[in-house]
């Protein structure tokens, strides 16, 4: 504030003559200083790697005879033919699709209900609940997965009465065990996004609804929920992206159970292929996965926006 008053205190008309051309050159230099560093790094570590991965996905290794020296040549769609023929890759996509169809609505529904409860006059100690629900977000995915891995294990868990009878880390359950870890970490984060959207709603709207005789549940469903749809769409897109990109939790769970294969999720397929090493095929998997992620979040945005404006 003080800078503003001192700046205005000076004589404002003093240097105005002839400044436009000079100002433009000033701006050009300023733009170079302000924009170029970020954009240079963005080009080097976002655009260039993506371009290079696409390039590598069209390459293939050829050998002269069985033991001849390997040379890389343009292979057209050779790698993509392998991607489409890879049962493991499509099975992993099916697995994360099932995961997403169940976990994303459960997580966002839970986040919405908790946000509405914290926002309602029914709950005392809002600050405490906000902090308690958000705390898991401070736990990195690796550590959350290690922690829950212990909690699920039949012998080490404090709930061994349950875990020794229910095979949470077995083949049928492990996907949902992972879903629980992801939900545990992200519910509080999504709840905060929805909660800040609720806080932005002006109080008069509630007054009007209350005078019309609406109760808390009615206000929540008919007034609050429609107004936080944009926040739900945002959290939905990020959750879909996160689901398709699932890697950390299943990779950590591989130390706890044999039910998580090396091709459990699409990103694990990418990682496993790259450790073979078959970089060109891994690049092709990456490109297909990135395209699918992009298309899916785009379609989701279009669908939900149409719904929101009907």
């Amino acid at each position, binding site marked *: 504030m003080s*800078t503003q008053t001192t*700046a*205005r205190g*000076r004589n*404002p008309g*003093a240097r*105005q003559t002839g400044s436009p051309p000079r*100002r433009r050159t000033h701006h050009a*230099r*300023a*733009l170079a*200083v*302000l*924009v170029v560093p*970020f*954009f240079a790094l*963005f080009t*080097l*570590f*976002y655009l260039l*790697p*993506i371009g*290079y*991965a696409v390039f590598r996905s069209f390459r293939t290794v050829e050998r002269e005879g069985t033991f001849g020296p390997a040379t890389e040549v343009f292979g057209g769609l050779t790698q993509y033919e392998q991607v489409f023929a890879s049962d493991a890759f499509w099975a992993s996509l099916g697995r994360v699709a099932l995961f997403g169809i169940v976990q994303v609505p459960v997580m966002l529904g839970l986040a919405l209900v*908790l946000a509405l*409860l914290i926002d*309602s006059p029914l709950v005392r100690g809002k600050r405490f609940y906000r902090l308690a629900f958000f705390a*898991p*977000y*401070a*736990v*990195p995915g690796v*550590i959350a997965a*290690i*922690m829950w891995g212990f909690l699920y294990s039949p*012998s080490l*868990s*404090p709930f*061994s009465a349950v875990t020794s009878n229910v095979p949470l880390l077995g083949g049928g359950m492990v996907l949902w065990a992972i879903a629980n870890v992801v939900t*545990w970490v992200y519910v509080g984060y999504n709840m*905060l*996004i929805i909660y*800040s*959207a609720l806080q*932005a709603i002006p109080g008069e709207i509630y007054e009007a609804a*209350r005078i019309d005789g609406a*109760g*808390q*549940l009615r206000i929540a469903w008919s007034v609050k929920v429609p107004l936080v749809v*944009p926040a739900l769409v*945002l959290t939905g897109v990020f959750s879909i*992206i996160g689901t398709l990109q699932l890697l950390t939790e299943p*990779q*950590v769970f591989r*130390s706890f159970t044999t039910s998580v294969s090396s091709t459990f999720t699409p990103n694990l397929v*990418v*990682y496993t292929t790259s450790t073979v090493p078959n970089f060109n095929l891994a*690049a092709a998997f990456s490109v297909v996965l*990135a395209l699918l992620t992009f298309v899916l*979040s785009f379609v989701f945005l279009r669908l939900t926006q149409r719904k929101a404006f009907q």
Partner: protein
Amino acid sequence: MSILTRTDGYGPTTARESRGVRERPMSRLVAFVIMGAFTLYFLVPIWWLAVASTKSRGQFTSSAGLWFADFHLWDNLTFLFTYGGGVYLRWLGNAVIYAGVGALLGTLLASMCGYALAKYLFRGRDLLFNIILGGVLVPVTALALPLFLIFSAVDMTNTYWSVFLPSLVSPFGVYLARIYAAASVPDELLEAARLDGSGEVRTFFTVSVRLMAPALVTIFLFQFVTIWNNFFLPLVMLSDDRLYPVTLGLYAWNSQTNAVPELRTAVIVGAFVAIVPLILAFLGLQRFWRGGLAAGGVKA
């Protein structure tokens, strides 16, 4: 349904009033039970980790999981920090470099760029912004393998730089900085600084940065978490365990516990030591999170 009529207590008739008095505690109780159950769900695992890190190896399996037994925290900490030549401390240091220094520099770069996009009209501005916005939709996991390919092309994998440099780039930070700069730095102020003879870059560092300070904290936090949680990049990039961040180190230890059982103690105490400062910092800075999240919500 009872909740629906809850606010009828405000109504004029005595019948309604009495109903309101009877039902309000009921829905309060339901809300309290739900909130209590979820508080347990979110906090019990962290509580378990805290308790488990105070136990000796024998007590870990034999005593009740959710309460203290013998108090072995100091022994466990000594074991953690001395195992493998004190490599854990190194991992913590690495994590601070990658996530702390990386997010600090990244915030500076992102805020400069976002500020310029908000405050200057220049050719190609919208194109530039749209390209960066596209970058927001590219998850860091999708970039890990392409980054590995690029770094191996110049033979620079398995170095500090291979994890540090890519972490500096935060398109989401640019996006947030642009929103905040547009909202919090008035054009008249920049004009006044110009008339005073201050250069554009100097104005940014002396005037605009101060006005954008809350936004900078938010951008820093977001980027810190993104780098800290980015597991795939160091996993593919690094093979020398002295370069690991603490998450990758704990993962490596955890995958050896079947062969080296005493490492389990180190994994548990190490996990606890790694998250305590984070949880405290997160909770202390929560109002910045909410500010950033509210701005992020504008996008959709």
